[in-house]
């Protein structure tokens, strides 16, 4: 701890169209529709709740097996199983504390037009806090990360969502499976994205020697967890140098120290993903620990720390 101060640190953060109690969001697909974790802490204590990726129609997802554990990480190929936007708005959203904590939908669609339609359906609901566009899912046959690997397509999807989103803030979630993440980041920022989320999973694979089969029915899947933290941090840092819009850091964050490291590298906020599986109260513990840790480092507000990395 660099220094001790008596005043209490303030973890609040302002994002385009969103004022957050703290920079801690849940990462899409790792927190269900939120309610699954309601018995482990107060959902309204979170900065924001990003729910499982939604599509226009319900999706059954990929066949099993869908997950595999790897050193300090895991692979998933869920294939965007979800109940569809309609059931989400009817059954799940009402039970979430959307008045006090922004609820953010994560959008998946097969082309730009469908993305627009989905965005319109979600943006029409005043209870939604923001839209996160998933152009980086490695686990679906159509679209998925192909959008996020091509600056032109990513920009087209961004424009379609922005046009349909009204005044709802739009964040675009980028894929790390590219040669230069800043090219896509710039294209998406120029297309009007309000924020960027970095990063989705790395494309990986695991096999089982006994059965001579892949450990995922989908063969390849997305790598997440502490293993990828160095890649996520590098992407966040690179993207923060390249664009002027806020960046939400995600990838391998498992404690409050990790959170501050991402802020130091330039992130405005962060998302907690796989660490929710390590223990179901992780995200609530991080929310509690963050101001104490900030205090320990003599950091009064996140603005004081953000992007102050000396390189």
């Amino acid at each position: 701890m660099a220094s001790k101060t008596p005043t209490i640190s303030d973890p609040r953060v302002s994002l385009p169209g969103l004022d957050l109690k703290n920079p801690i969001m849940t990462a899409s697909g790792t927190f269900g529709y939120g309610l699954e974790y309601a018995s482990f802490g107060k959902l309204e204590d979170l900065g924001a709740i990003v729910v499982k990726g939604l599509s226009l129609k319900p999706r059954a997802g990929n066949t099993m097996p869908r997950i595999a554990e790897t050193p300090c990480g895991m692979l998933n190929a869920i294939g965007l199983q979800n109940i569809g936007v309609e059931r989400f708005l009817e059954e799940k959203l009402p039970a979430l504390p959307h008045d006090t904590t922004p609820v953010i939908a994560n959008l998946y669609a097969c082309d730009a037009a469908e993305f627009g339609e989905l965005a319109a359906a979600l943006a029409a609901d005043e209870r939604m806090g923001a839209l996160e566009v998933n152009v980086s899912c490695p686990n679906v046959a159509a679209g998925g990360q192909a959008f996020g690997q091509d600056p032109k397509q990513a920009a087209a999807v961004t424009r379609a969502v922005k046009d349909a989103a009204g005044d709802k803030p739009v964040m675009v979630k980028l894929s790390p499976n590219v040669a230069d993440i800043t090219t896509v980041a710039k294209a998406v920022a120029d297309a009007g994205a309000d924020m960027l989320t970095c990063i989705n999973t790395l494309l990986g694979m695991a096999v089982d020697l006994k059965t001579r089969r892949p450990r995922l029915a989908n063969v390849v899947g997305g790598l997440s967890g502490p293993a990828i933290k160095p890649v996520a941090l590098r992407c966040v840092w690179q993207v923060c140098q390249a664009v002027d819009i806020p960046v939400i850091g995600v990838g391998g964050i498992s404690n409050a120290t990790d959170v501050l490291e991402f802020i130091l590298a330039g992130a405005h906020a962060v998302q907690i993903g796989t660490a929710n599986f390590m223990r179901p109260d992780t995200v609530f513990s991080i929310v509690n620990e963050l101001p104490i840790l900030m205090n320990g480092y003599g950091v009064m507000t996140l603005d004081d720390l953000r992007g102050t990395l000396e390189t």
Partner: protein
Amino acid sequence: MKSVKAPVYLRNIQCQELTVLDVVPFGQTSTGVTHCFALRLEDPGWSHWRPGQFVMVRHPSFGLELIWGRAFSISRLVSSGLSLFIQAQGRGSERLSAANPGDKVTVWGPLGNGFAIQDKRTLMLAGGVGIAPFLAYAENHPTPHKLELIFGHRLPLETYPFDNAKTLVPEMTVSSFHERSPEDLPVFLEMVDEAIMNHATSGLVLACGPTPFLRAVKQMAAKHGAMAQLSLENKMGCGVGACLGCVIKDTKGENVQVCSKGPVFWSHKIEL
């Protein structure tokens, strides 16, 4: 603002640090590689739980390397503590087997739905460590004399808490079958088939064990028209219904979470 309500099945779940009381090895096998043990933990003090429910467990030695908790059935829960019965078969269960008394493990539960308890003749079919939840089931059953346990195993009998089951619930009928070689399997399955037939009209069948075994039970139950519940052992990421990594297809073609909608399913309602 509406109040935040978790689905019923999730209301009582707690995530706690529980102290390890001890690790009791069960009949070491000659190779020394695969072995079973009881992990005894302090009483979590839950207000409600049901036999057939399970917990997710992490030992501090999992560190950041092992991402997921490991799922274990509640094998016994009395005021002196919570017992899990564990077969070491991989990285996580091996690290648990090396736990020391006094260590704190992270436990979240009680998870899932549990077995039906009905005032009927009830047949418990256990394969290997699948015996674990039936100790709790028998011990908490209102009419234990109506219970019959059939236990199939590959490792020596003393590797499992079979004798404990007999001692804890002397009223129930028990039998065991040692599957020494693959040729023994049909003999065992015939025994199971006959028992299921006997419980078809007015009884209840419960099964826990390896998937091929459950698949056989499902077929036999369908053949004899028996009401049967199966407890599944899919690999679990979160244990609370969030990751969608543990799903099974139900007969409506929907993928449902084994951790939160199961692990116990009516045999005729799922595809296996």
